[in-house]
Every structure is written in C-alpha cells, then in structure tokens.
C-alpha cells in the first residue's frame, strides 16, 4: 500500500465534519475472478479455472456480505456491480443468492442500479433472463471491437455477429445497457475508428465505455511490447486525434463524455462508477476487490486477497477475505478525491478538497488555467476539453 501513514500536514483527527460517504453515496462491488480465457491486454484479477465449486463460492460471498454489513449497518445502498473476470459466466442462481443476501443486509435506494459485466457470447446471452430475474437491471457488455480480425487480435472469443446477437437479447432483457469498445488498436486508422464508432452509436445503447488500448505490464501485450513485437500502435498525436474525434461523434449523438472514457445519454451515467469518481464509500467483496469505507468517522482502504483459492480459504477459515485495511489520512483522501474526481467533467469541489488537505492548489491551478487545461468556477475545479487527454500530466502537476 502507498504511504498511508499520517503525513505531518494531515488535518487533525475529527475529519467527520463534512467528509463522509454521504458525499458520494454507497455502493457494493462484487468481484468474480474467473474467465473462459485470458485476454492479452487485460491486467485485471482474472483467472481461468476448469472447476469452480459453486457452493463454496456462494457461501464465501454470503459470509463476506454479512461481515461487511455488520460494519455498515443501516447504510442505504445505491448500487451493486458484478465485475471480473467474467461475471456473466456465473450461475444465475448464484447471482440470485448473492442479491437476495444483499437485500437482507442493507436498505436499498428506490432506484438501485445493479450492473453485471457480460461477454457477448451465446453462452452468456442464454443466461441474461436468469440474471434479470435475479435482480440485475443493467449490463455492461465487453464487445471491444466491431471487426472480426481485431477481435481475434484482442484475444476475444466472440465474433461481431455473435456480439450483435447477444446485444439484441440484452436490449430486450435489461432496462439499461452499456458496452465497451477498445480503440487506438494496432494499425487502426482514425477514419476506421470513426466508422466503427458511428456503427456502435447506431446500435443505440444508452451508455458507451470507449477505452484507448493501454499496454499494461504483466500482460501478454505488455510482454510483446517490451520485446518490440507489438507494432502499429498509434503515437500520442494520433491517439489524441482519435480521442478528440471520439468526443465529437458522441457529443453529436447525444452520448457526451461524462468521464475520461465513459459516455452516456443524460441520466444514464453509471451510478455505481460515479461513486468511485465522486470518492464515495464502497465495499469490495471477492478476490482482489478494493473498498473505501468510512467507519466511525475514519476512512479506510480495504483490499482482499488476490488469488481466488487463497481468498476462498481465508473467508472459510478466518471469516475475512481482506488482507489489508489501511487508515487513510486526510491528505491521502484529498489526493484520491482529486485523482478520481477530475476524471468526471463536472469536476471536484475545492471546498471538499480543502477540508481534507492543507495543501494550497491555487498556484498550480492558476498555471494550468493559463495553459487552458483546467478552469475554476464557484469553488469547482474542472478539467477542460483540452485538458482531458492529458489528465495524468495535470495530476502530476497538482500532486505535491
């Protein structure tokens, strides 16, 4: 874990005054760590396993839900998110059992959002109705590309046709649908991406996650890249052009970007993900899941054991899958809030930042404003359209 020791300038102990989970809501993340196969670009905690003992896993999730619920009694739950791995490979009955337990554990908001990540293969499409009956009301589909050869290059198991078919089933099954595409792929031209994005927009989802391909260390792509074997990736200038083209097309289609890589029709933003970006509270359950929880006025970061078997064993034997629970100082929280909050177009509340941190951002804000990268208005700091594709540069400037 990073330096979570109280830094000398950290605000004194009672941070409860205005800073608690009510600022961002309360969500629940459930991690299902298994995939049918590993994708070469993915650095998420995913594993391929031949045999999964559903009973043991069900019991473990339920035990974890109860443990966390006991720490957070009476919180109103705004969202549940099944991520992975490939949660669409879960038995719908397992999803149902988990959601039933969730309902028993916390009172729920009227408009609770329950999302499940799904791969668009026929196998999974066959389970959609079961997921809906279990309570899932939103799916996020990993379509990734609308081009068969690129899908193969990305290590995906579905074809475009299959994806479209699964998408149609999803549209008839769930209230809300989002799907993911990856762009700035090998040898992809700006024109090709524009055409593909137009096609994606025409599929009429209410939400799109459009990610630039990122080469992560420890992935198959990362290894290939390090050996100079991953050619044809766009340079920064071309990548920036693609980014701006993406903003233009989605704006025109009524799906404006509300976060770095996320686009939605107004009101259809992912409520669960907005909890992260608003730096609200969320419990993380399942192997490798992270959480941020305010307990008795103190904010904690939690992290579960990553390896599925070890996590399962820990939950069964020791009644907790968490391996780390760190106290977050005011400064820690301030920078996490800044880092997450500037991703969303609405920006961050500088008053909230200054209740957490004694650091004066003004000189850096002024400098970045002069470059046209950020703007400050009535206590809100926002990254401009020009600043969005260089957010990491902005954050490095702002960090102490």
């Amino acid at each position, binding site marked *: *874990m*990073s330096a979570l020791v109280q830094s000398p300038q950290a605000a004194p102990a009672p941070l409860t005054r205005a800073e608690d989970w009510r600022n961002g809501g309360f969500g629940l*993340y459930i*991690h299902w760590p298994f995939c049918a196969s590993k994708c070469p670009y993915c650095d*998420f*905690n995913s594993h391929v396993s031949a045999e999964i003992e559903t009973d043991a896993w069900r019991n473990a999730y339920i035990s974890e839900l109860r443990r966390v619920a006991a720490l957070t009694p009476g919180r109103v739950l705004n969202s549940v998110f099944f*991520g992975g791995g490939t949660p669409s490979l879960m038995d719908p009955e397992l999803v149902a059992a988990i959601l039933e337990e969730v309902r028993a554990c916390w009172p729920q908001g009227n408009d609770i959002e329950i999302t499940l990540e799904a791969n668009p293969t026929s196998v999974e499409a066959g389970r959609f109705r079961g997921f809906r009956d279990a309570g899932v009301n939103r799916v996020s589909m990993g379509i990734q590309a609308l081009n068969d050869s690129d899908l193969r290059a990305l290590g995906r198991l579905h074809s475009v046709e299959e994806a479209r078919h699964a998408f149609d089933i999803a549209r008839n099954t769930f209230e809300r649908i989002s799907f993911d595409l990856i762009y700035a792929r090998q040898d992809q031209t700006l024109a090709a991406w524009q055409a593909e994005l137009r096609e994606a927009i025409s599929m009429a989802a209410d939400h799109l996650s459009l*990610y*630039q*391909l*990122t080469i992560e260390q420890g992935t198959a792509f990362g290894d290939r890249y390090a050996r100079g074997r991953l050619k044809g990736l766009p340079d*920064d*200038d071309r*990548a*920036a052009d693609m*980014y701006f083209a993406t903003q233009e097309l989605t704006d025109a289609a009524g799906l404006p970007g509300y976060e*770095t*890589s996320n686009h939605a029709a107004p009101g259809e933003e992912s409520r669960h*993900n907005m*909890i*992260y970006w608003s730096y609200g509270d*969320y419990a*993380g359950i399942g192997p*490798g*899941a*992270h*959480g*941020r929880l305010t307990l008795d006025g103190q904010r904690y*970061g939690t*992290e579960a054991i990553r390896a599925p078997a070890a996590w399962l064993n820990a939950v069964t034997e020791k009644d907790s899958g968490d391996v780390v629970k760190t106290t977050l100082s005011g400064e820690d929280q301030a*920078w*996490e809030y800044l*880092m*997450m909050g500037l*991703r969303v177009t609405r920006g961050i509340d500088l008053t909230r930042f200054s209740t957490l941190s004694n650091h004066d951002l003004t000189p850096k804000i002024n*400098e*970045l404003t002069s*470059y046209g*990268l950020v703007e400050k208005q009535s206590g809100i700091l926002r990254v401009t359209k020009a600043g*969005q*594709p*260089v*957010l*990491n*540069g*902005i*954050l*490095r*400037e702002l*960090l102490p």
Partner: protein
Amino acid sequence: MIKLSNIRNFSIVAHIDHGKSTLADRLIQLTGTVAERDMQAQILDSMDIERERGITIKANSVRIEYPAKDGETYILNLIDTPGHVDFAYEVSRSMRAVEGSLLVVDATQGVEAQTLANVYYAIEADHEIVPVLNKIDLPASEPERICEQIEDVIGIDASEAVHISAKTGLGVPDVLEAIVTRLPAPTGDPDAPLKAMLVDSWYDSYLGVVVMVRIMDGTVRRGDRIKMMQTGATYGIDKLAVLKPQMTDIDVLGPGEIGVITASIKQVRDTRVGDTITTEKRGATVPLPGFKPAQPVVFCGLFPVDAAEFEDLRAAIDKLALNDASFSFEMETSAALGFGFRCGFLGLLHLEVIRDRLEREYDIDLITTAPSVIYHIHMRSGEMIELHNPADMPDLTYVDHLEEPRIKATILVPDEYLGDVLKLCQDRRGIQMDLTYAGARAMVVYDLPLNEVVFDFYDRLKSVTKGYASFDYQMMGYREDALVKMQVLVNEEPVDALSTMVHRDRAEARGRMMCEKLKELIPRHMFKIPIQAAIGGRVIARETLSAMRKDVTAKCYGGDMTRKKKLLEKQKKGKKKMRQFGKVEIPQSAFISALKMDD
C-alpha cells in the same frame, strides 16, 4: 637474477572479442601459474568496466614460468595494454616495455580497426610480431584468407602463423614455444646505473600506490632508495614483487624483468607513466627517452543530479583521483546546475570511464555537460586567459581574438571508406596534410581543430567506416580562428550547461541541429516550449516542442486507485531526476546527447 636469454616480454594485440583475454587465461592456466580453483575468466581485467566493455584501461601484467622444449625454463612476462586512442601514450609506454607481440586475429573475422591501431604501436616499438589465428576450430574459419589479409593489410609475414583455439586450448602450447623461439630476449646491462621505466601505477587500499616497472638497465633490491627522475622525489622500496598475477615477493629485479614496487608513495599523481626510476645514489643521469606528462585535453562539468549529493561527489572524485593521475578537477558553480566539478580528461573514453565509475562504484547520478577544450582568449589588454568552460567566456568587447588547439590526426582506412573519411574531416574543419596508400589502405593525415574531434569524432569515424578505420592524434599547438560562444535558450531561459564554442561559419548549422536534438530529448510538457540557439543576443535557430497531447489512464475505477496514485507519484519522482530550468524539466541525458552530431 634471471639470465637475459631466459626472459621473454610480450604483449597481445587483438580486436575486441578476438580472444585476447581467453588466450591470456589459457597461457596462465597451461603453465600452472594460477591454481585451477583460483582461475576466473578474464583474469587480467580487474575492473568491472573493463570486463563489461571488453576494453583494458589499466596496464596489467603476469609473469609465467615456462619449461620449454629446449630444456630451459623461461620467464615470460605478458603486459596487457590498454587499447584506445585516449590512452595512446600509455599504450606506447607499455609497448616500449616489451620486445614482442602476439597478434591475435579471429580466423572467422579477420583484421579489424583496433588490431591495426595497436599493431601500429607495436611496429613503432620495433616489436617482433607473431601472428596467431584464433577460433580455428570454428567451421567458419578461413585461415588462408586471413593470413593473406594479415600480409596485405599489415605487411608482416604470416606464413608461420600459429593456429589455435583459445577456447578449447588447441595449439596454445605452440604459442608458448613460439614466444620462446621467435621473440627476442631483452637486452640490458646489470652493472649499469638503474634505469627502470614506470609502465603504470595504481592505488591499492592495503599497499598504497603500486608501481609497475620494466628494468632496462641495472638492478633493484628491496630496501633500495630510488628516485623518480621527472619529479625528483625519492622513496625507500618497501616491497618488490612480481605479478603471478597476484603479488609474489621477490628480492631483486634485474634487466629485462618486469615487476612491481611499493615505496610509501602517497598518491598515484606522484608517479608519472613513462618516468625513469633510478637509484638515489649513483643513479643514472639521462632518463629513458619518450616521457610525456599527462595532459588533460577534454574538459567537462560533472554535477550531481541531486544537489544534496555534492559532498558525496567530492569524496568520490578525491578517491578516484588517488588512482588516476591523468584526471584533473576543480570546483565549479553553474547557474543552472548548482555546485559540481570541472574535470579534465585524456579523451572522451577516459571521460566516460570516469563518469561510469563515479555513477556505479559511488552510486551518484551525474549530469555531464558539453565537453570542451582549452581555448586561449587574447584580451585587448594584451592578457591571455585560458578558457576551460564556455560559460566563462568574457564579454566580447574586451576580447581581441581567440585561439583553439589543433591536432594532427592520422587515420588508416580501407580504400572503400576513404571518401566518407575525407568528408567527415572536411566537415569538421579539417585541412588535409597528407594522403598516401599502403596496399588497399589509405593513410590520411589531417590538421583538425580539437574541439571538432573531442566530442564524437571517433564514434562517427567508426560508424562511417564500419569500424575499419584506426585513428591516432598528436597535439599541434594553438591557432587563431573565428570562434563564437553559442547559447541555448529553452523556453526563453539560457541553459549555461549547453553553451558551446563553435566556429562562426558552422554556428547556424550546429545551432539548428542542437535545437532539433533537444526537441527530441526534452519530454513534452503541459505547454509548448520554444528552443533557441543564439549568438550574443541574436537567435540563429529555433524549434518548438509542442505541448503534451495524450497522457491519461483509460480505465480507472475503484480497484485501481492505489496503484494509479503510486504510478503518478513514481512518474513525479522521475521528473525530479530531471533538471529544472524555469518551468522546463530537462533530462540529464540531454546535456550530452544534444551535442552528438549525426552528420
């Protein structure tokens, strides 16, 4: 004392990777000089940098006892010599200390540039040369063709070349026999006053300064009082030894022998390579010919990346200087870089070696500024100032004229690359002095300004001739020329560490090249950055580094928060390793890379 007729002194001349170290290892092993269990590869290259770069920086030697077929036991002294033009003087001294050379050529590769350069030193020292063809066991070896090549290119008889495989040991006994039968024994008068040539010296943390000597005339014993003829300093010998290759005490060294001396000498700088050592009483009156004092010709600033490490740098430089008399230093302050040292070196390799050692052995990150030569500035007042650092250039209104050091460069190059070499020399303001042919090789002599050579001439020469040229130079004195100080401005701020002296006619081209280079070397910032080259107040070249366009994490949800923050912090820390000039951060590597010319 050993009979002269039973001594053979030799060096090994070879290109990198042609098997010099392996052959030396085999000779040492085969004669049982080092016990099998103490053997390690490249036993004579003691510095890590030597092993890594495959070069020899310090001379080293080993004494081998060899019972020959004629029934006599011979003492064979191998001196391992440095092999780079920066150390040309040291090489020439080492060569003078022995009578013969083994010329090792890879039978799959043939004669290469470094071989030529070093053979040249051996020929100059009147060596008997025994060609040795190595890697004869490899299917790709072509001994006949390589022998012809040796005869054509070098002009020595290769009909009796020894065929070996240093790796397998095949033929190595023949090498030992050839050393005894084909190389001449040394000469010298045991009764004459002592004349010992100082071949090299180094600092040993237990023994103090160790001096390697070749006895030319006379004898030396433990306890003798000796005198360095150049410095006049006298010492009592504490220890007399030969290297096997570990130090083995001996009572007396006579003519033709090679050994080491310790004599409570405090610093390596008290010993001069090439100096003549004699006895304090009844010593020789005339020293051995050929001594030259070490003269730094290249200067540059060394600054700690982290200003807090200045004291560590001082301590490290003090320590290194104990072991290297040819390197000079004084404190320097730069507006941009803070406190550091202005250091003088024998050449660029020497500079790189010292810098590497400071960074590695002492773990200090360094910024190296543009290498410079010493200019003579003649003031209107009649005064002459030596300029070691372009940043110190006085106001031009007080300057009458400038002089720069010139060298006489001798380049040996195969015909096919001659055109490229002439162009390179011409581009570097050279004046051709001579051009002759020897077989398929041309010998080109050029009068060149040292400042055009100092930086990357050797690298460029190697690259335009695919490594087939050899290069040597001598200082020729100073000459007036139209030199100006070129400044570099990054985001309108002058960066003093990038100031260079250039010829007026070259300034524009050089300025443009430097701006283009810096545009590549400086990472994009959040704003666009003008990069300019200027003479006085006049901008002669300009480039613009555009602002950063893309750097954002595509996926960032609840699980990634900690890792993402760590990554940003790490990047921020990486930025702190750069130097801040106004609002611009310049990576340390830029200070030296910006000056390399790809013409």
